[in-house]
C-alpha cells in the first residue's frame, strides 16, 4: 500500500513541474510587464523619471534577468520560502491574499464535491435498480437538464428569486449585520445559510454526469454472475446490493475527482462572481484584468496543483477500496 502511494506520488512530480512551467509562461505571456507599465504611468503623470531610476526599478523587481532565471527564482521562492511573489495591484504578498481567499475556495469546492456525491450516488443506485421506472426517467430528465443549464444562470435566477420571496439576500458570505462582528454561533449559522446556495449550484453542476456514470456501472455489475449466484443462495437483497455491486461501481465515480475538480474550480469563478463570494475566482479575474501576473499565475498554479493532489487522493482512495488496484496494475484509472 505504502509502495503504491509512493509510486503514484513520484509519478506526479513531472506533472507538477510542467504545471509550474505552464503557470510561469502565463505570467510571462502578456506583452510588457507591470514595471514597464508603471514606469510609463509615472512618466505620463508628469513625474520625471530618468533612465537610471527606471533601470533601478526594473532591477528591483528582477525584470532584467532572462526568463529561465526568473522562473527558477520564482520556483525557489515557492519551494524553499513558500513565497509566491508580490501582488502589484494590492501591494501585498500573494501569500497574504491567498491566505484570505483560498480557504473559502477549498471549503466550497470540497463541500460541493461532497454534495454532488451525496446526491448522485443514491440517485444512481435507485435509477439502476429501478431502470425504466417513472422516477428513473424523472432523474434522467433533471440530470440532463442540469447538464444543459449554465451554473451562472442558475445562480442568477435562484439568487434573485430567493431575494424576492424571502427577503434574505444570499449574496456574500455574511449578512450585513454580522459583517464586522467576531465569530459567534449566530454568525456561523448565518454563514451556513449563505453557503447553501453556492454549494447547491456548484455541487449539482456535475451531478447529472455522475448519476449517469453511477447508474451505468451499477447496471453493468448487476448483470454479472456473482450477483445471480448470491441471489440464488438467498442473500438478503439489500445486503447483496450494497456489499458488492455498489462498492464495485463506486470506483469509477471516485476516480472522477480528477475531472470533477477542475470543473468545480471553473464553475466556482462565475458563481462566486455572481454571489459575491470572496474566493480566488473573482480575485483571479481582477488580477488578470489588472495585469497582476504573479497573483494570477500563482492562482492558476495552485488550483492546478490542488487538482493533481485531488487526483492522487482519489487514486489512494481507490486503492483502499479496491484490493485489485492495490496489488495489481496501477494503470487502471
Amino acid at each position: 500500500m505504502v509502495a503504491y502511494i509512493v509510486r503514484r506520488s513520484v509519478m506526479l512530480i513531472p506533472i507538477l513541474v510542467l504545471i509550474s512551467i505552464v503557470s510561469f509562461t502565463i505570467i510571462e505571456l502578456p506583452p510588457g510587464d507591470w514595471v514597464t507599465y508603471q514606469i510609463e504611468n509615472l512618466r505620463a503623470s508628469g513625474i520625471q523619471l530618468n533612465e537610471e531610476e527606471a533601470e533601478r526599478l526594473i532591477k528591483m523587481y528582477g525584470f532584467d534577468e532572462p526568463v529561465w532565471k526568473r522562473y527558477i527564482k520564482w520556483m525557489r521562492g515557492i519551494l524553499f520560502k513558500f513565497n509566491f511573489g508580490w501582488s502589484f495591484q494590492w501591494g501585498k504578498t500573494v501569500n497574504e491574499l491567498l491566505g484570505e481567499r483560498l480557504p473559502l475556495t477549498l471549503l466550497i469546492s470540497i463541500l460541493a464535491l461532497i454534495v454532488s456525491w451525496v446526491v448522485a450516488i443514491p440517485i444512481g443506485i435507485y435509477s439502476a435498480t429501478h431502470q425504466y421506472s417513472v422516477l428513473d426517467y424523472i432523474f434522467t430528465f433533471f440530470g440532463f437538464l442540469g447538464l444543459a443549464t449554465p451554473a451562472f444562470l442558475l445562480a442568477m435566477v435562484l439568487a434573485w428569486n430567493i431575494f424576492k420571496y424571502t427577503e434574505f439576500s444570499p449574496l456574500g458570505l455574511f449578512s450585513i449585520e454580522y459583517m464586522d462582528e467576531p465569530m459567534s454561533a449566530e454568525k456561523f449559522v448565518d454563514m451556513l445559510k449563505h453557503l447553501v446556495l453556492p454549494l447547491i449550484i456548484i455541487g449539482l453542476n456535475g451531478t447529472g454526469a455522475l448519476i449517469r456514470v453511477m447508474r451505468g456501472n451499477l447496471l453493468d455489475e448487476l448483470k454479472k454472475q456473482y450477483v445471480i449466484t448470491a441471489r440464488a443462495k438467498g442473500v438478503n437483497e439489500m445486503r447483496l446490493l450494497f456489499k458488492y455491486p455498489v462498492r464495485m461501481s463506486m470506483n469509477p465515480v471516485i476516480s472522477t475527482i480528477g475531472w470533477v475538480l477542475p470543473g468545480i474550480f471553473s464553475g466556482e469563478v462565475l458563481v462566486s462572481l455572481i454571489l459575491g463570494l470572496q474566493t480566488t475566482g473573482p480575485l483571479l479575474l481582477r488580477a488578470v484584468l489588472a495585469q497582476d501576473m504573479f497573483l494570477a499565475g500563482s492562482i492558476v498554479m495552485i488550483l492546478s496543483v490542488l487538482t493533481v493532489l485531488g487526483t492522487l487522493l482519489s487514486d489512494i482512495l481507490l486503492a483502499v477500496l479496491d484490493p485489485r488496484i492495490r496489488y495489481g496494475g496501477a494503470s487502471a484509472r
Partner: protein
Amino acid sequence: MRIRQIRDALLKTPVGLLGLLSLSAQVVLSVWVVASYPDDFGNRVWSNPIHWVDNPKAAPPAWIRRVDSQPRADHWQAVRGEPETVEEKGRNLIASWNIPYTMEPEAVPAFLALTVRDVRFEERAPLLALTLIRPDETRVSVLRHAVRGPREGEEGPYARHFDDPLRIQLSADESTLSSLQEFLAEEYGLQMDAEEIRPRVMDILFGVPDAAGDGFAPMSGEYTFLFQTATRAEGDGIGSVELVAGGDAFGRMGTDSIGRDLAQGLLYGLPTALVIGVVVALLSTSIGTVLGMTSGYLGGTVDTVIQRLSDIVANIPVLPLLIFLLFIIGPNLTVIIGILIAFSWPGLAIQVRVMVLHMRSSQLIEAVQSLGSSRWRVMYRHILPQIMPYFLAQIIFTAPSAILAEAGLSFLGLGDPSIPTWGQILEAGFRTGGVYVGYWWWIVPPGLLIVMVASTFMLLSLAIEPVVNPRLRQTRRAD
C-alpha cells in the same frame, strides 16, 4: 454496424426523434439567419448605438399587453418621402406632410423623435417646422429648426444630413420646451418654467391639464403631425422625414437599455451557438480520438508522452486559463473556440486509449496483425470503426459544454463584441442591473435559449447512450 444502430436509436426512439427534430429546426433557422443578416451584423448593427437610437429603451415585448392589462403605448414609426402638398407663399415654397397618429386610452408614448434626411438647397437653407394637431383641434408648435446654412468657402448647391441624419429628440429639445411653455400660457393660462416642463413634455403634448390643476390627463384619439418645410428654390427640399413615438413595449422580444431589438440579437445567437458547439465538439473529439488511438496502439514513449500531456492539460482548470488568454490575446471568437478545443480532448484521449488497449489484445487484431497488415492499416481499418460510435456520441456530448463555456466567458465580459451571443446579452442584462429591476425579457429568453440548444444535444446523447454503452441495454424486466 453500430453506426446503423445509432441511426436507428435516433430515428426510432421518441427521445432521439425529438432531439433530431429540434436540431433540424435550429439548423434551418440558423441557415435563414445567416442568409438574411448582414455579414457585419455585430459591428455595424448590434454594437452600434446609433442604429438603435429610435427604439424605446428597456421596453418589454409587445405581446405583454395581452398578458397584463396595463396601458402601454405601441411603438410607432412613420417615414414619408415626397411631400403631400406644395404651395407658394410669398417667395417661399411650403411643402407639407400630414402624418396621422392614434393614441390609445392612457397610452402616452415614452418619447418623440424627428429624423430628417438628405437636405439639399441652392442658396437659402430650408426651415423645418413640426406642429401637433390634437384631437381637440388645439395646435402645438413642437419645433422650428433652420438647417445649417452655407459655411465660409462652401459652394452651392449644398447638401446636409446625407451621412448623418438630423435627429431631434423632441421630448428633450430646448426649443420644444419653450414652445410648450408658450402653448400652456396661451391655451390654458398656465405658467410653468422650463424645469417644470422638462420631465413631463410627453404628458403635456398628449394630454390636457386635469381638474386638480397639478397634472395632465392623457387625451386619447386621433392626432396629426403636420411637418412643413419652407424652401426658396425649385429642387430644394428634403429626402425623407421620419417620426417616432416611443412605445412602452416593443417587438417580439422587447429591447435592452440602449434600445437594441432583442429578437434580432437572440436570433443571431442561434447560428453562433451551434457553430461553437459543433466546431469545438468535432475538433476536440477528433484530436482526443486520434491521440488516444495512437497512444494506446503504439505504446512506448509515444504513449507516455501523450498520457503525461493529457494529465497536465486535464488538470489545469480551463476557465481561469481562458480568462487569462482572452485577456492577453483579446476577445475573439476564434480564440475562444481554439482554447476550448485545446482543453477538451484529454479525457477522451485517456478513455480511447483504454479501449484501444483492450482491442489490441483481442483475437481479431492479433489475426489481422499476423496476416501482415501494417500498423496504420490496423488502426484505420480495424480499430477506428469500433471506436466510431463512441466518437459520434462524444461529439454530441461535448457540444453543449462548449456552448455553456462560451456563454460563461461572454458572461464575464470576455465575449467577442463583433459577434453577439446569448451569453453577452445575459451579461449586459446582469451588468446593468436588469436582474434586480425585473427586466425579465432581457434575462430569461437568452438563458432559456442556451438551455434549449444544450438540451437538444443532451436528448440526442440520451438516445444513443444505450448503443454506445451496450451494457446499459437491458430489456424491461418482466415483472
